């Protein structure tokens, strides 16, 4: 089973990611579905804990905001690691939506983005294939000082100095 970082631990990933073109995923117990597909599910299927939506980089999700906030987990997809739109998606879900569930970053992410991902509100991270996750976990602690507010920091440094 593939692994990912959850919190600051390396764990097995028991979710299956369903791409836009994938049609047959009935054999999987827990599936991460494209947002549009997930929204088509009935309430029981959406909220039963066995499905979660993934939001693509740049995908407009505000229209479905209320439903997304009910999901047991929300996944944000980064198609390339240089595409930083997912950082804003996470901030909006956490800060504006007050989303409390698991927020997962997937795609071609690199170790050196972990600290920023965590600050924006992600709490599980699937890094690009071939990453030494045990070593990568350390990057979650790259900095002990931050200036700004973010999903993980309500009070900016200037109000704490």
């Amino acid at each position: 089973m593939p692994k990912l970082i959850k919190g600051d631990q390396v764990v097995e990933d028991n979710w299956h990611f369903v791409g836009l073109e994938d049609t047959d995923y009935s054999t999987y117990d827990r599936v991460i579905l494209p947002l549009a597909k997930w929204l088509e599910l009935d309430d029981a299927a959406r909220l039963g804990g066995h499905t979660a939506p993934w939001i693509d980089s740049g995908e407009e999700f505000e229209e479905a905001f209320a439903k997304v906030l009910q999901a047991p987990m929300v996944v944000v997809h980064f198609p390339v690691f240089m595409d930083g739109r997912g950082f804003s998606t996470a901030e909006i879900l956490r800060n504006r939506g007050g989303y409390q569930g698991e927020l997962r970053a997937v795609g071609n992410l690199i170790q050196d983005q972990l600290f920023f991902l965590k600050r924006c509100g992600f709490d599980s991270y699937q890094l690009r294939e071939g990453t030494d996750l045990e070593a990568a976990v350390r990057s979650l602690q790259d900095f002990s000082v931050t200036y700004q507010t973010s999903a993980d920091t309500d009070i900016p440094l200037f109000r704490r100095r």
Partner: protein
Amino acid sequence: MYRYDQYDRQLVNERVAQFRNQMERYVAGEISDTEFLPLRLQNGLYIQRLAPMLRIAVPYGLLSSTQLRQLAYIARHYDKGFVHFTTRQNVQLNWPVLEEVPDILADLAKVEMHSIQTSGNCVRNTTSDQFAGIAPDEIEDPRPWCELIRQWSTLHPEFAFLPRKFKIAVSGSESDRAAILVHDIGLQIVKNGDGELGFAVYVGGGLGRTPVIGSLICEFLPWRHLLTYLNSILRIYNRYGRRDNKFKARIKILVKAWSAEKFAAKVDEEWQHHKDGPLTLTQEEVERIKGFFTLPEYKTIDGADAERALQSQALDNIDFQRWLKRNVIDHRVPGYAAVTLSLKPTGTAPGDVTDAQLEAIADLADAYSFGEARSTHNQNLVLADVEKSALFSLWQELQALGFATPTVGTLNDIICCPGGDFCSLANAKSIPIAEAIQRRFDDLDYLYDLGDLSLNISGCMNACGHHHVGNIGILGVDKKGEEFYQIQLGGSSDENATLGTVLGPSFTQGDVPEVVAKIIQVYVDNRQEDELFIDAYNRIGLAPFKESVYAKAD
């Protein structure tokens, strides 16, 4: 100037440790070139034509003598003994060794310096007016606001992977010496009818491939809201800026595509979620930061006496008079003046300074100007707080060092990027063009007669030499592997910023000085009384220049 506390120090030290680890992993082959690219860029490290290049941040251009000495040490120890001052008030090392860059960063951190976000698709060094805090026409010192922006933007988790680079400039005076209208965000400090301080916010200005003058999207933003509003602009840009084509990824393209009105409305809508939130600035924090930019301990001097004494020193000394006229400006405090050290002596790449010169400047800063110096976007340095009675001896020392070239603001005070001699992006060389023009115009009386005239040279359309906003702008272009130069006229970067218009077909390197001479002659023939070049151009237009330059020889 701003001094680090334990938080700032810790953050910069942790950044050094992070980059050291990244460099080790890169050298060990654990990080690919593609992945290392943004990591090194966000630490100012480029891989250039001949060697790596490291860009060091000089926040809003302020340098202490201690920092100058450390830069000298770094230039000598890690490089070939010189540094280059850029058009964004930063410093570049042209020959560092890749593996030694973490050590350089550690040495910078010792004197409260860094290279964080001096490149890459993130918020860059915030730039400002080199005469901040001393200019007679100043509404409010922009530097505390620059520092607040610096801290907010440093390692901002949401905005480290923007569509493209992002540059902010702040002006606190009526005359804009920070070129704010050609920045992604330009902030003009203003006061409203009630005397309350705020910002006029311009977005979407920029040079490069598609030069644009910024649009006003907020006439008066009360100071408390500065960071929440900036955060909102950045979020809109991060989400909606184009990412499919790097040449269309700057915020100016988004603002144009949407219109400034729509962009302003989107920002306003986003801002409603941030406004009055925890990022809202407090009086306490603003006062704390302002406390770092208090006035030095000026002596009480009779301004009229000081001026009389100076004039009598200048009597019969034409060289000193020239320098006073071009390189010294008035100060808000009686008896003081600000002195520009010209980094443009003929034969030296504009903005280049050696290690020994840096140390000498540090000594001068200590002796004459409360231990501080400033870099300018025109690639010069400024000693901002010099007693008028000390100007003569300072001038003598500057002459010996080669920094007294009395040409500030003239045609020979050329802004010039490193160009094809160093930069791997360049289409053409720019430094030899600058030198050839300086040699062609070596008659000081003629230069003074021409008055204020900016000539800016970029070696490619990325426009680091700001050619679009030079009264005369020169752009290096590549034509089938050969270097040619396109000339533009009529640009300016002040509060009435305009972009230059292309004169016509480009020229060979050898032709450029004569073409500039012809352009100047058209101005001289047409000007009315003391009319400046830019005013004459605006009155008579491009046609007479074009006719003269492209006239067929009989």
